[in-house]
């Protein structure tokens, strides 16, 4: 088959249009992807250790977390449902999620679906002034305790 000059130029025209459109689409996709995002939340100071009795589980304002204390020490349960991220609320002795009804024990273990994973734990530490803080950007295992 012989390619005429006219066909060649037509193909060239359409070809460059397609390439340019593809490039534009790729640039748009990249444009939509942000280069700067909200930083992870930092540590939140939550008072001195003796404000929390052994056996207590206290809601911490502005941290989306609960501070617990048992015989071994302090721990923090993150109040973000492991299903799709709603905030479960402490109801009697269980965490109940308002979105699709997952339930967790006081320790954050799953009692009923749809969630399949226990609530995450955040790092609890003590700063130079002896105050406790919770750092949600640092996840720790369920065994973690800050010794009292």
């Amino acid at each position, binding site marked *: 088959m012989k390619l005429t000059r006219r066909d060649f130029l037509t193909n060239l025209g359409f070809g460059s249009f397609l390439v340019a459109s593809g490039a534009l689409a790729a640039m748009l*996709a990249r444009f*939509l*992807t*942000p280069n700067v*995002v*909200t930083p992870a939340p930092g540590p939140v100071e939550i008072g001195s250790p003796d404000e929390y009795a052994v056996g207590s589980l206290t809601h911490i*304002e*502005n*941290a*989306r977390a609960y501070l617990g204390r048992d015989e071994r020490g302090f721990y923090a349960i993150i*109040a973000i449902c492991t*299903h*799709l*991220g*709603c*905030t*479960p*609320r*402490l109801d009697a002795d269980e965490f*109940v999620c*308002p*979105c*699709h*009804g997952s339930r967790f024990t006081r320790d954050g273990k799953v009692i009923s*679906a*749809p969630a399949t994973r226990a609530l995450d734990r955040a790092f609890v530490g003590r700063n130079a002034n002896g105050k406790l803080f919770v750092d949600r950007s640092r996840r720790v295992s369920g065994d973690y305790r800050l010794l009292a």
Partner: protein
Amino acid sequence: MSLWRKEKSIIYALHPEKIPASGARLTYTFGLGGIAVLASLITLLTGVALTFYYVPTPSDAHNSILLIQDVVSFGALMRGLHYWGAQWMVVAVTLHLARVVFTGGYRPPREFNWLIGVALLVITLVWDFTGYVLRWDDGAYWAFLVGTNLLREIPAFGETIYRAIVGDVQIGANALLRFYGWHIFGLTVAGVFGVVYHLWRLRKDGGISRPLLDENETREFISRDELFFREFILSALISAALVFLTLIFPAPIGVVANLDAGVTDVRAPWIFLWVQNLLRVIPPLWAGIIAPMFVLALIIALPFLDRRGPGRAIWFARERWKPQVILAVIALVLIVLSVVEAVR
């Protein structure tokens, strides 16, 4: 000199000279496509008005809506018409889709217009959802949170898609601004283009579908003037009904969202109640991504299950049972799931 010349008016340009009486009969289309056009126009105009007061930032969004609602003159009416116009649009578009299936209006050469229609359905739903988010009240916030977190369940590309849509690693100011942009501009451009294309294509496909004639029958027509008159009356009635609806039931708004405090009960917007129900029982990827995609794919495929043969442009023709049964089953399942979720 006269400024008004009927034959040069836009009404003439937008309507064919005459259309078959069968297609113009109210009991054939129930005017549902037309109602969708009207509802989208009302929603569009009142939406423009709302942009003059609405502030798309997490700190001010909710307050600016309260301002529109309680302080701005006729603000509650504008917002109410916008809200109810949008709800009617969803209802009209859905019923219009059902009408097209049950009368076989999708038959060739109209199957391409069916596909444009499906795109309009998706645009309508996303439009509705992005608008809901702008309220930034309790209900909207949790729906936004769950809806966007669902994107993360998509294998391999989830996080990338999440960031491209949300514009961040969590929902907040960036996400609200983006959804505002999509709602008032991106989807509006796509929607207006889609509706114009749909109506242009309707004319190119020979107008609204009509039954085949028997030997001895002649086709009856109605004139452009008659068509416009009927449209006018229907539009006036629907508009009046919308205003009354708005006066009796103001558009809802909840308390401002608070992530920290756990709430007792969260309810998805009514169009997605069925998804919320599924999310309780099956894994998120299946309930929130695969199931809706599957329903959409089934809907796209409907016209291709029945392309020729008798039964054209007749309500509930038995010959075309396949698409009708499938749509009825889809509708039944979605309605049952939604009702169960709504009353729980």
